[in-house]
């Protein structure tokens, strides 16, 4: 189950820099670990996070196996207009999660 937590302020002043905190529930299996029988556990990670603000991309991150399990990403953006912030997580084995948050700019 793709479970994602996103924290975005519900209201902001125009031009204010807002902080977006997001966390995805994911084991981030590195692909370097082995089972007791010595078989390599295949890699299963979240590879990217894209944030769009009213359809325009404002932030993108590429993740690697060196990101801890349950990847947390905190970034900022300028509150320009009221609308929707959409976060798209995607990863190995068809992992995909989308979360949208509303923000009203006064």
């Amino acid at each position, binding site marked *: 189950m793709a479970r994602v937590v996103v924290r975005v302020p519900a209201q902001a002043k125009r031009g204010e*820099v*807002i902080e977006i905190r997001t966390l995805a529930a994911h084991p981030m299996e*590195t692909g*370097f*670990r*082995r*089972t*007791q029988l*010595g078989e390599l*556990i295949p890699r299963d990670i979240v590879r990217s996070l894209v944030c769009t*603000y009213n359809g*325009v991309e*404002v*932030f*993108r*991150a*590429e*993740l*690697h*196996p*060196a*990101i*801890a*399990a349950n*990847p*947390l*990403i*905190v*970034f*900022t*953006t*300028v509150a*320009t207009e009221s609308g929707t912030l959409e976060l798209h997580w995607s990863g190995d084995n068809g992992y995909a999660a989308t979360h949208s948050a509303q923000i009203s700019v006064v």
Partner: protein
Amino acid sequence: MISRRHFLLVLGGFAAAAQAQLDPGRQAQRKAAMEAAVRAVTGGAPVREGKVKLELPPLIDNGNAVPLVVTVESPMSAADHVRAIHVFTERNPQPNVVSAFLGPRAGRARIETRARIADTQTVTAIAQLSDGSFWSDSMHVVVTLSACLEEGLI
């Protein structure tokens, strides 16, 4: 008759020799991997120190989730902003940690995440500015319980 002191000295010598033989090859390999990863980002452009601030706890109890903050001094305007922030490690199995792509709409050049740090090593953050220049900051961290060592335990 071999004394205890002499025996321990010889044993210590062997251990040092074994480590000296084992380490350089692997270290060189990891170093080359990191240099290749940095080159893939910079394209051979010079990387200067400064402007970037990498924050990590200097002593890490558990390398499996290490809070990591990168801030870059930048006005983040359309003319002068940070395009990307990359984080690399010297001794993880893979040098890349995270690559973040920002723009003038970020408002502030700051990212925060949690990383796996495999060993006592140097972590480097490199930022690419809109004028094409690269700036970096490095930090040496000591790890007591490293990530990636739980092999065979699951």
